[in-house]
């Protein structure tokens, strides 16, 4: 609907009448304006007008978990269609219809029949509308992926650096092992076993931390934007991808460091 309907709370409550119509308001409006179920308000089409439609608040509704509404601060009121048409002088008009069908094939068939027969408007599958209105979130998603890539590069560099350092610290032990006759392959396997264990442990810890952080993120942004929308969702796919990636990075870093160490002659490792 194009025009906002304004709600004015009235100080004197008229006697209860069966003819009084009811509206539902969103929880944000209820909280900010101090309105409750049973309160009487006057709806007008434009601010400044004194006469309007006296209604009773019959329900307070939770906002939808709709990403497109997250950043919008306007209030929402729900009322009967005819009532709103009367208030704003819209006549016998609507902005759109939402059509429920019994399954996919029925939806396609209904779409074709509406577009073929209807005069002056066009029907779209809901999915198409969702894609169109999701362009903002597609951008946010790409941004997150980019940040993720940078973080992965940073983590990989850090990991490789640390592995090289830790392995370097033990070069005398490795030198002694090699001088005793223990093969390069065994040395590499030992180091890689260690790095695999650390990578696995790190992955498990990271997944746990991810769950904790996502719970915190959801709690925080739900409070900031006053919405039930979940901002961070951890799926099986996300967990699998993260664990696999950290394992690959950790083991890879260990392998590189181990190869470097195993290739160095033992006496050089002793500093001779």
């Amino acid at each position: 609907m194009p025009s906002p309907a304004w709600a004015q709370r009235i100080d004197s409550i008229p006697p209860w009448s069966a003819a009084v119509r009811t509206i539902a308001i969103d929880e944000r409006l209820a909280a900010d304006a101090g309105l409750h179920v049973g309160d009487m308000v006057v709806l007008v089409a434009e601010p400044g007008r004194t006469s309007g439609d006296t209604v009773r608040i019959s329900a307070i509704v939770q906002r939808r978990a709709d990403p497109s509404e997250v950043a919008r601060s306007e209030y929402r009121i729900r009322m009967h269609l005819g009532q709103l048409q009367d208030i704003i002088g819209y006549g016998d008009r609507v902005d759109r219809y939402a059509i429920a069908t019994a399954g996919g094939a029925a939806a396609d068939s209904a779409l074709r029949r509406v577009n073929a027969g209807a005069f002056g408007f066009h029907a779209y599958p809901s999915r198409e509308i969702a894609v169109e209105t999701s362009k903002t979130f597609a951008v946010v998603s790409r941004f997150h992926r980019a940040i993720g890539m940078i973080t992965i590069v940073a983590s990989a560099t850090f990991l490789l650096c640390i592995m090289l350092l830790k392995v370097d610290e033990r070069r005398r032990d490795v030198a002694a092992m090699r001088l005793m006759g223990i093969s390069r392959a065994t040395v590499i396997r030992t180091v890689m076993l260690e790095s695999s264990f650390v990578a696995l442990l790190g992955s498990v810890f990271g997944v746990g931390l991810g769950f904790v952080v996502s719970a915190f993120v959801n709690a925080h942004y739900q409070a900031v934007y006053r919405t039930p929308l979940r901002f961070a969702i951890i799926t099986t796919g996300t967990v699998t991808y993260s664990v696999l990636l950290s394992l690959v990075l950790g083991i890879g870093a260990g392998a590189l460091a181990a190869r470097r160490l195993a290739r160095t002659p033992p006496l050089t490792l002793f500093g001779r």
Partner: protein
Amino acid sequence: MRFQLAALSLRRHASRTLLAVLGVAVSAAMLLDMVMLATGMRQSFASLLGRNGFTIRVSPRGTLPFDTEATIGQARDAAVAIERIAGVTAVAPVLGTTIHVLGAANPVTAFALGVDPAVQGDYQLLQGQHPTANTLVASDALLHATGASVGDTLDVAVGFDPQLRTYTGRRRVVVSGRARFTYLSADDRAAALQLASVQAMGGADRTDRVSLFMVRTAPNVDPEAARVAIERALPRVTALSTAGAVAEAEHRLSYFRQLAFILGAVSLIVGFLLVTTIVTVSVNERIGEIAIMRAIGVSRAHVVHQIVIEGIGLSLAGAASGLILGVFTAKWLNSILRGFPGLPDAIDFFLFEPNSAFRALALLVASGIAAGIYPAWRAASLPISGTLREEAVG
């Protein structure tokens, strides 16, 4: 000699040093990008809104400019009331609507602004003349879509009723100029006509109505005072100063600012940890050398000095590399975020502000200094004889 020793120590394990510098560089780049993100949105948006000197936007009560299709009625009276307020030097009315360019197989739809060309702040004329009663200026995207150019005549209409397939207003207009629309993206099809033309074509629904007033105040006037005065004079409107608009935008985009803060803090911590680790391991490897230096009479402070210089070297090299890397990654990230639908061309999310950038990098270098102090002091304080004995046995 301390600098020489520090440089040689870093060169001794070149690949390790290089990796550490790379790690610090990535941390520095991320830190820089997050600082740019935190400052960029605010500055970019404020700069856009403050362009042409308009410090206040007036929209229908409870709405933000062009947030809804609501309009302000009795616009002429409203403009007069605003002009009377002390400090107001100009009032630019704007009426937004959808315009249809007819004639081709499929009409081309565009966003149209009805403006007063004498005081408008919505577009910058690139070629031609400002719109008159039967002319318009168009964006390059609209001209491209219609295949028109300056001087051509277009058949335009507004107020399309899809059921009756009629328009409330239709007229033939000449393209008098090309323009860049300040608050729209380059891809947007847009046109500007005289306010009266748009109001007339819009029929009863648009008569004496505007979507928004842009208000210019005198340089020595506090826009906030003028804003309050406007809302007092016109209870049916909401007046938003540039600062207020920036704050509102920041609230809506607070996620990015918070993300910037968190990632920036994490980058700083990671950079600090990396330098600490490198210095600690490097010091542990040279415990014997450090003990010898102490034995031959090098003071503890000078030993710490030398090791801290190594930490500074790593941090400085990393910060310098990170500055270059950060500028490139910021360009890339900015190009992603500029894909937001309807984002004005003039908005950048990542803005390089030298003071903030160098302060952030200085913080990283300072953390590098701090990172080196503890391991260095610890190593320089070990008992000399015991350390020498252990190193001999080891």
